[in-house]
């Protein structure tokens, strides 16, 4: 339920002043949903490997089409973020005294994720230009 029922769901979600932990929660959830929907699609495309060679290769545009590459980059970012932020949640849940460093941990997650994503997307762009 939204924090303030008089406001809409989206505006109350966005205006809640929970700081970096709140933004982490929003992104963890959105990223998780996005990855879950990709997983369903991915199971279907790999299922086609068992149907026939051409049935699978008809779907390869998902991975080959340069115009769809930004969607793949969003997925790469989402997977890295959900994985690293998930590890932060595990650390805080199993070692509760680490909650004291929640902000530092959340910032660390962002730094690692941005470095990894920029590096891997950069490798992709250089590869596409070559």
């Amino acid at each position, binding site marked *: *339920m939204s924090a303030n029922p008089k406001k809409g769901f989206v505006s109350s979600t966005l205006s809640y002043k929970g700081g970096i932990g709140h933004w982490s929660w929003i992104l963890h*959830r959105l990223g*998780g*949903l996005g*990855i*879950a929907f990709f*997983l*369903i699609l991915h*199971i*279907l495309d*790999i*299922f086609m*490997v*068992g149907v026939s*060679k051409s049935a*699978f*290769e008809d779907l*390869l545009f998902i*991975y*080959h089409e340069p115009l769809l590459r930004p969607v*793949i980059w969003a997925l*790469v970012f989402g*997977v*890295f973020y959900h*994985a*690293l932020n*998930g*590890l932060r*949640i*595990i650390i805080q*849940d*199993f070692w509760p005294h680490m909650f004291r460093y929640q902000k530092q941990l959340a910032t660390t997650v962002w730094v690692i994720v941005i470095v990894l994503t920029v590096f*891997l997307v950069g*490798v*992709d762009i250089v*590869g596409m230009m070559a």
Partner: protein
Amino acid sequence: MTTRYARTPKPSGSTFELLSWFYMRASGALLALMVVFHLVWMHYVIGLNNINFDVIAGRWTGPGGIFWRSYDLTLLILASLHGMNGIRFVTDDYIHNRGWRALVKALIALVLLLMVVFGGLVIFTFNG
């Protein structure tokens, strides 16, 4: 000694939600390693543009076939259950009507079953 207040909900007696909480952390830790490896391997070691039928077929039927089929099956089961359980959390947060929530959860369970059946079928039965 712990103090129980009158309005504190009594423990329900079911350990399902505790197990669910633990599963998300245990599978999450494993998935963080396995999915990142899978993603980096397919995207950068093999290369997105090189992925085709022969690459997947070779991976499952070649000398490392048993390893890759086990790896892919482990990912399939861990990730499908982790993902669908996560969507179940979201429905608990936003769908307040009991009937709709039950319906959506039944759909989530059905999708989970189909994911594991379809994915498992191709991993187990593929023979080139």
